[in-house]
């Protein structure tokens, strides 16, 4: 499958260690990749470019939500775009999972496929992380009317026609919940797909701390 109708949107911020490998793997399956460099202070952007990705550069650091929205605007300006996948730059996501999600969009009558690490047993999260993520799920389900098993998973696949109604305004971390809320509000047809999140020593070393969940909560309440 050539996937020329599909774009991978990869928010990128200081991932020079892994980004080249992540892009090199993904580009085998998805030839169209845009990395939105969110003002990295290392050479992440040029590494992504040399690996074959297109790079849109934020002049200053704005946050992952803004990077995603910039990526959405970019890929939606391509008339050939039918499907859009959001994919993390740190190597946690599997290209095969993304591929399966796009295949579901092609075959099923849904607008968005959301990755979930809690639908099977492949993902090994620590007990604390699991607990915090579960709390986030409960909060998101209560506030958005969307029923999910995993609320803060960066792997998602959208039908382009549905993505046009998404407008992220939360620059920082709360964009994940905001995205879900908009999926609910615009009545998108959604399904979940079991995905495998690989926690490496690298991703753990810079992964989201538990403190981040406090920040997300504050951002959601104090808009």
């Amino acid at each position, binding site marked *: 499958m050539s996937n*020329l109708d599909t*774009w991978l949107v990869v928010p990128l911020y200081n991932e020079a260690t892994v980004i080249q490998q992540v892009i090199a793997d993904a580009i085998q399956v998805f*030839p*169209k990749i*845009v990395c*939105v460099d969110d003002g990295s202070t290392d050479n992440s952007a040029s590494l992504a470019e040399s690996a074959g990705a*297109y*790079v*849109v*550069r*934020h*002049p*200053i650091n*704005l946050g992952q939500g*803004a990077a995603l*929205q*910039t990526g959405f*605007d*970019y*890929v939606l*300006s*391509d*008339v*050939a*775009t039918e499907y859009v996948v959001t994919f993390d730059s740190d190597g946690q996501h599997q290209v095969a999972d993304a591929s399966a999600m796009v295949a579901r969009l092609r075959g099923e009558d849904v607008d968005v496929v959301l990755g979930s690490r809690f639908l099977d047993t492949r993902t090994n999260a620590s007990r604390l992380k699991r607990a915090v993520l579960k709390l986030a799920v409960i909060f998101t389900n209560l506030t958005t009317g969307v029923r999910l098993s995993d609320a803060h998973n960066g792997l998602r696949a959208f039908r382009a026609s549905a993505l046009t109604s998404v407008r992220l*305004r939360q*620059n920082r971390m709360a964009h994940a919940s905001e995205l879900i809320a908009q999926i609910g509000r615009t009545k998108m047809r959604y399904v979940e797909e079991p995905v495998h999140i690989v926690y490496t020593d690298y991703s753990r070393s810079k992964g989201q701390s538990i403190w981040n969940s406090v920040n997300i909560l504050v951002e959601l309440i*104090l*808009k």
Partner: protein
Amino acid sequence: MDSQLLIKLVLLAGLAVVALLIVWPGRGARRMALRRISLLLVVVTAAVAVIFPQLANDVAGLFGVGRGADLLLYGLVVAFVGYVIATRAHHSRVDLQVTELARAQALGAAVDAGSIHR
């Protein structure tokens, strides 16, 4: 009877005004004028309090507050809360504008996505 009922009501009214300012729609000429008038009133009040310190004490007594200094402090707290909230709102508006500007710049400088064919 609560001897401090009056001052409690006055301070709560002040906080209510602050709350009203938060939810007040738009930021047109009226809102800006109101903000300037209230700032001017604060300056005039401060000047009067400097010239006639006894007046602050008298007013405080009127409200059931011990000293003028206490009354000033209470007023300051209300004003400060209002300031913090107004600044926060302004800050998030500016944040939004900077984001839009930076994103537009980034997209403008990028290779046109529609031109990509592999």
